């Protein structure tokens, strides 16, 4: 009976830890989307060779646009290829081999900027090169937490269509209760 009780305590602890990480992960996903989901500004007119800055007026109007953002439904662990590009210092700071954070509850995203966050319909995505039911796709890797839970390592691909996107590796750290980018590296473009 005593063993069963101990097992129950241990399982409860593990379960709480995963739930907490899930909550944190969902918060981070929403935070990243709020940070990086922007409508595409039109380019400067082709016959205007002098404009190299976006106007304040256009920026203001872009700020007001609410987007429909899809999150890819699976989060994969880093591939061997991705492991190789992680800076050495992070290889020890994050437990890259034994990551258990791979199940996310996809119904708790809340964008503070008013974007609508949905789960991507991957069957629909296969039919068309352009996204039919959302503006942007955010495809996250699994999230790797530092031992003290104050840093997160992940990679992310952001696409405007199946053939227009880019990916990058990120390390975020918590500073005064908010996440800031500590490390960033571009990976690929498509």
């Amino acid at each position, binding site marked *: 009976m005593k063993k069963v009780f101990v097992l129950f305590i241990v399982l409860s602890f593990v379960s709480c830890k995963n739930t907490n990480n899930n909550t944190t992960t969902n918060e981070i996903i929403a935070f990243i989307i709020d940070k990086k989901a922007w409508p595409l500004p039109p380019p400067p007119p082709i016959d205007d*060779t002098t*404009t190299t800055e976006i106007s304040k007026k256009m*920026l203001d109007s872009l700020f007001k646009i609410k987007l429909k953002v899809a999150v890819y439904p699976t989060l994969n662990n880093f591939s061997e290829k991705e492991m190789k590009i992680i800076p050495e210092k992070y290889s020890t700071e994050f437990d890259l081999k034994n990551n258990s954070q791979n199940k996310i509850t996809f119904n708790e995203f809340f964008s503070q900027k008013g974007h609508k966050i949905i789960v991507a319909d991957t069957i629909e995505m296969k039919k068309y090169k352009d996204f039919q039911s959302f503006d942007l796709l955010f495809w996250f890797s699994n999230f790797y937490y530092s031992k003290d839970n104050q840093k997160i390592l992940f990679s992310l691909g952001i696409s405007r*269509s199946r053939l227009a996107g880019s*990916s*990058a590796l990120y390390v975020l750290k918590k500073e005064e209760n908010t996440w800031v980018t500590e490390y960033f590296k*571009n990976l690929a*473009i498509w």
Partner: protein
Amino acid sequence: MCGGGEVDLANEVILDESFVNNEKLKCAYDKLTADDSPLFRDTVGVFIDDPEFNLTFKVGNCSYSDDACTDAKNPNDIIITIVDVNQSGLGIAALILHEAIHAEIHRFVAQFESGVDINDRPRLFQLYAFYKGWAENTQNEKYNWTQDAHHHYMVENYVNQIANVLRRLDNNNYPLSYYMGYGWDGLTSYGYTSSRLTAAENTQNQNLRAIVDTNSQICN
């Protein structure tokens, strides 16, 4: 090559074993090489004269794309990975051209950084400055804004060229309008934003493209 792939001697481009062994990909690549269009020469072909820059084609996985990706972390050694090989031969040729344009722009910008005349392509650098500034203004500087500059540049310069090449590969079986859908692959949101494409035009392009996809025998 040690891995069993090929070095395309005409273009000095490295074709990985995975690429060479894929019948459809190799067929589409060979058709593009034989066609020797200005677009192919100006993208894949430019890696001929510049021994400092390698371009490798392979088949594999891209972490966040089920279609293809171009890895230019090291611009001197650019790798194009094709993921989606289950599409029409013309679709694959369009995919190769799309990624090759990315590779060539990466090469060009890297060259500029080591001294190439900026006036060679002022519009490209204007787009680079514009989208870099936009990312900074939205406090989103940790975003690869180069993709937006690349894709707008593609819309302005390459959509028609891609369509033309594919039409020629398909033995001019249909008018050019039937191939425009391939040229716009992945670029429609950029077309809408720059008012170079409407939803109605895109629908028409896709309908015509479907006819070509059904009937074309090229590398299928």
